[in-house]
């Protein structure tokens, strides 16, 4: 264990996004995560690496799976984990954000895990506290641990990331998962495509290093990985797509569209799924193709690696970022 720890270098104070990470940083986190996959499958899942450390889960936006995943990850490393339900004030969310950050900071947490509905909010908060901050999703910006768990899932199943072709399909415009994945997959040498109707693609998305498709069969042709995104149902009101029926017809993943992909292509989804909207139920549950449940398992392992990387350094001697 000691030698493994010594080799695990992660030269960052916070994890605010995938942007800014090097291939070595990512590889180190994924390598470390693999150790935890094994640990999590044992009867005794808990160790004492982070004993005495305090981790606060601060979710300004409702979330079950991500906050639970982080909570489990922290507990399995022996840390004290508190999940704070935060009611964001309707008057001034930001004031609450900074005030909350300062208040929590005074309680001396070692790691803050933060989700917020506004892009950049987690970074802003990280500037006001002196503990490590992990971005658990900020607006439409980044969700780095999701991209890491996706990468871990891919690496376990395909034993590599470099050279694979990955199609990210659906509501790219509003998706932090898509942005983090585009960054990570590019850093690790994969070929990335996005497939979506034009209303669900942000401007100049091609500048982020992706090939753009508006047709599922073309976009999925010979891909190794099909990554579906959740269509947030409130997008209906904004006329981004005319109906769920039409969306599923053209952009929902079913067996027919999947034929274009490689025969061993994996199907991924960050969850929670809208069955029959972006993904056909049978495809989602296909044990040969779908790795959606595995993604959830990888989530805990990856978050343990991230917490280890950022939580080991005691806060009072944390190097300046």
């Amino acid at each position, binding site marked *: 264990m000691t030698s493994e720890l010594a080799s695990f270098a992660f030269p960052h104070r916070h994890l605010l996004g995938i942007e800014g990470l090097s291939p070595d940083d990512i590889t180190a986190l994924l390598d470390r995560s693999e150790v935890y996959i094994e640990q999590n499958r044992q009867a005794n899942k808990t160790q004492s690496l982070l004993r005495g450390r305090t981790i606060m889960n601060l979710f300004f936006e409702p979330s079950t799976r991500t906050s639970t995943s982080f909570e489990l990850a922290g507990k399995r490393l022996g840390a004290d984990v508190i999940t704070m339900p935060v009611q964001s004030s309707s008057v001034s969310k*930001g004031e609450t954000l900074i005030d909350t950050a300062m208040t929590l900071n005074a309680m001396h947490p070692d790691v803050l895990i933060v989700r*917020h509905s*506004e892009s950049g909010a987690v970074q802003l908060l990280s500037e006001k506290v002196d503990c490590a901050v992990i971005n658990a999703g900020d607006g439409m910006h980044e969700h780095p641990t999701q991209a890491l768990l996706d990468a871990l899932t891919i690496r376990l199943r395909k034993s590599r990331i470099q050279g694979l072709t990955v199609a990210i399909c659906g509501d790219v415009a509003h998706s932090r998962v898509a942005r983090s994945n585009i960054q990570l997959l590019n850093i690790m040498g994969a070929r990335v495509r996005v497939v979506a109707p034009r209303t669900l693609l942000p401007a100049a998305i091609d500048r982020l290093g992706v090939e753009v498709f508006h047709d599922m069969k073309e976009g999925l042709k010979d891909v190794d990985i099909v990554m579906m995104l959740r269509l947030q149902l409130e997008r209906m009101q904004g006329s981004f797509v005319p109906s769920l029926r039409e969306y599923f017809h053209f952009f929902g993943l079913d067996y027919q569209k999947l034929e274009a992909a490689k025969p061993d292509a994996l199907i991924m989804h960050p969850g929670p799924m809208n069955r029959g909207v972006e993904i056909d139920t049978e495809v989602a549950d296909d044990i040969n193709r779908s790795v959606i449940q595995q993604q959830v398992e990888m989530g805990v392992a990856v978050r343990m690696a991230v917490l280890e990387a950022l939580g080991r350094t005691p806060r009072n001697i944390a190097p300046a970022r």
Partner: protein
Amino acid sequence: MTTRTLFTNARLLDPATGLDKKGELLSVDGMIAEIGEKLACQDAEIVDCGGHCLAPGLVDMRVQLREPGDEYQESMESGGQAAAAGGVTTMVALPNTDPVIDELALVEFIARRSRDVGLTRIRTYAAATKGLAGKNLTEMGLLAAHGAVGFTDGLVAVADAVVMRRALSYATNFDLLLIQHPEEPRLAAGGAATSGEIATRLGLPSITPVAEVMMIERDLRLVETTGARYHAAHVSTAAAIDAIRGAKARHLAVTCDTAPHYFALNETALGDYRTFAKVSPPLRSEDDRRAVVAGLADGTIDAIASDHAPQDQESKRLPYTSAGAGIVGLETMLTLALELYHAGHVKLLTVLGALSRRPAEILRLPAGKLEAGLPADLVIFDLDRPWKINVADFHSKCRNSPFDGRPVQGAVLRTVVAGRTIYAAS
């Protein structure tokens, strides 16, 4: 008692006549009396300009002074000091105060406060529609008679085409000026950055740059049918500038301004969510920035206005989308505009004209020229002096400037209103 002030040893710069030569200027009782190479005057106070530039004081046609209503952010007094330090001798306030400037009494209030403060002259626009609500016209004729220099809904567009057509049509009765915030509000709703790579990377809700030209093109049609005088505020996109260039070629009574941040910055200034770079309309692409510079160089863009928008810490220390928009610009407008000259993009007299002569002409104010009989509203500045912008030195109550630390060239030495020095650099 007659007050005489003689400004000697000056490089006289007059954008109205193209004058650029060594000389002297005599002010008598607050008015420009004489301009010449060597003036004979016995009992005048002498101001030695040290060979530096003497030009008409700046006329800033777009500022927010937050008084009445939000004096904790800015006031006539603090805004007046900021303006004086920036070489501004006349500024025109937007009506988006609390209460909104849509009543005669409020227009008179501004005039009275301006006299009481006694620094930079403060004029005001009145709201084009009651309460800036975009529905019912204000008493434009009466408001103008009481001193409103133009009509605008400030930070929001007059979006309803029917209301805009009637406002323009009605304004022609009194030959009044309508100033539009040119942005299609539905396209701009909720947006925080111009659409493009930067907004996409940062995951910010974006505004298509087309929102600007769309509103201008609609308005130009209405201007064409009504014959009204129309001014587009803070133009920021190549397409909008092209549309105005075309309208001017068709001899429509159309003018426009831009703000220093639209030629001194582009969207990359957003960096990692730097809320000090959040403005409305948002900072644009480099192509648009270059188009703004070209528009200033060829005169399509008539004026440079600071778009001074004080925002306190609490409004800016927020996630980007929630943060308030705006930059405090009064104290940096001249030096940022001089970058255009120092970089060789725009002639010096054109830059100065955009800062004084043109806005004065558009607003029909007795300013912007070195001409006998006009008020002696002057700025003396060192064209070349290098310095670094430091927000801690600002006179404004707020510090929201993305230009903090920027090395610049050209500094205000003295600001004179009606022959009286209201600011002298230490």
